[in-house]
């Protein structure tokens, strides 16, 4: 079995999984924070837009979102994220669009995680912020969000773990990450349990430390009340 794996770039595939995870996680955190702010903003249309985004994206299968990104945005609307004339434009475009798609999808969950964090902030904090004359954005920046982030570490960790696993869906638009490589191996060679176990183990190794880290962080950083 090891000689089979030797023929394939298993580590390279997992490296792609890690890259997809890291970049989409950053994107999802940024978009998700903006969405969360929108959902508590004083302007009604922003609140509605935020809610609409979350409800739509959260209920669409990720497969479809990524196909829309690749087929719809890249090929039909022809929005290139790299030089379309370069000799690796298809591969690069697909990786970048996969990152955008994964970020857009998980942003909806980041938003909900942050809202659950906002819910851990006592009412008095917001009232105190207002009573000393802070504006909406000031009280959000200085008082609410710092506490909300600390209160939402645990659910944010769960989103990160889910994101790591969901990068496998990028194989559907042809990104060469771990699950796609495993599919190739078991189709060309043999569907042995060993091959599956090695890839599964790879994901356990990627996700387990994240889980442990975020659990301990959430204990350490939680606001004592």
């Amino acid at each position, binding site marked *: 079995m090891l000689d089979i794996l030797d023929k394939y770039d298993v580590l390279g595939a997992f490296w792609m999984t890690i890259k997809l995870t890291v970049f989409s996680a950053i994107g999802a955190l940024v978009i998700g924070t903006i969405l969360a702010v929108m959902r508590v903003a004083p302007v009604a249309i922003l609140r509605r837009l935020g809610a609409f985004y979350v409800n739509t994206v959260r209920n669409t299968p990720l497969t479809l979102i990524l196909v829309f990104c690749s*087929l719809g945005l890249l090929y039909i609307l*022809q929005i290139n994220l790299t030089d379309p004339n370069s*000799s690796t434009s298809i591969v690069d475009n697909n990786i970048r669009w996969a990152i955008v798609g994964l970020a857009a999808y998980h942003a909806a969950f980041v938003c909900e995680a942050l809202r659950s964090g906002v819910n851990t902030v006592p009412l008095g904090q917001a009232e105190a912020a207002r009573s000393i004359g802070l504006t909406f954005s000031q009280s959000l920046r200085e008082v609410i969000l710092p506490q909300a982030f600390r209160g939402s570490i645990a659910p944010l960790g769960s989103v990160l773990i889910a994101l790591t696993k969901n990068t496998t869906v990028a194989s559907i*638009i042809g990104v060469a990450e771990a699950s796609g490589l495993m*599919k190739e191996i078991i189709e060309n060679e043999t569907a042995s349990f060993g091959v599956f176990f090695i890839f599964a183990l790879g994901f356990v190794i990627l996700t387990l430390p994240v889980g442990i880290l975020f659990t301990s962080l959430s204990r350490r950083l939680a606001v004592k009340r």
Partner: protein
Amino acid sequence: MKSRGLGAVAAAAALALTLAACGSSSSGDSAGSGGGTKLKIGIKFDQPGMGLKKGSEYTGMDVDVAKYIAKQLGASEGDITWVQAPSAQRETLIQTGQVDMVVATYSITDARKEKVSFAGPYFVAGQDLLIRADDTSITGPDSLDGKKLCSVKGSTSAQKVKDKYPGVQLQEFGTYSECLPALATGGVDALTTDDTILAGYAAQPEFKGKFKVVGQPFSQENYGVGIKKGDTAQCTKITDAIKKMISDGSWQKAIDNNLGPAGYKPGQGNPPTPAACS
């Protein structure tokens, strides 16, 4: 407390199972009456021009060939049950007897002959390229350097081109029909697989006049009828049927009907002479 809590869960489970069971009935055996032999024939459901299920109708070259063979075997159209035969499952379907024959752009290869027997070939196809109708820059595989190619994940035809012409970029989708809009907008420059399938797409009314097949096949695929391994009697009957179909003009008519709208002309080696059964 116990009965109430767990009972509710059990009830929900039973309900869900009933729901699930509802969906599984009445599939498959909708074959009409007719007194002749019943036949289960495996075809593609998703290849325009070759084997396509559109609504409740089955159309395509493979379908016409299968119908002709069935008639020669003494089965009327009502006796045929069409079974979907995806590429990866064709051998299994035959070996386990879930179909009597497979007529599904099924190339005769030595590897497959170890598992099933073939009658035919009834058609000689070749790997080719589908391009935009107004594209003059691609005239064959040699002019593909620096071009973008679209194909289906795990298909061997795309990998062949990529191995031979490393300057080609490859976009992989789940189905050829996803490639078509990308080809139309210029996101990719060509689509590659058997010329018959390409002609089938180009002949679809929705894409009329938009695409053309280059017409420089660079491989040879002999389509055969897959049957249970070693069934020489059946093989002989099918071979005779194919010969008759070619000689009485039905073969040409089937091509004209299904692939003609794309301006497709069968390549070299057509019509083929079916091999003797062994």
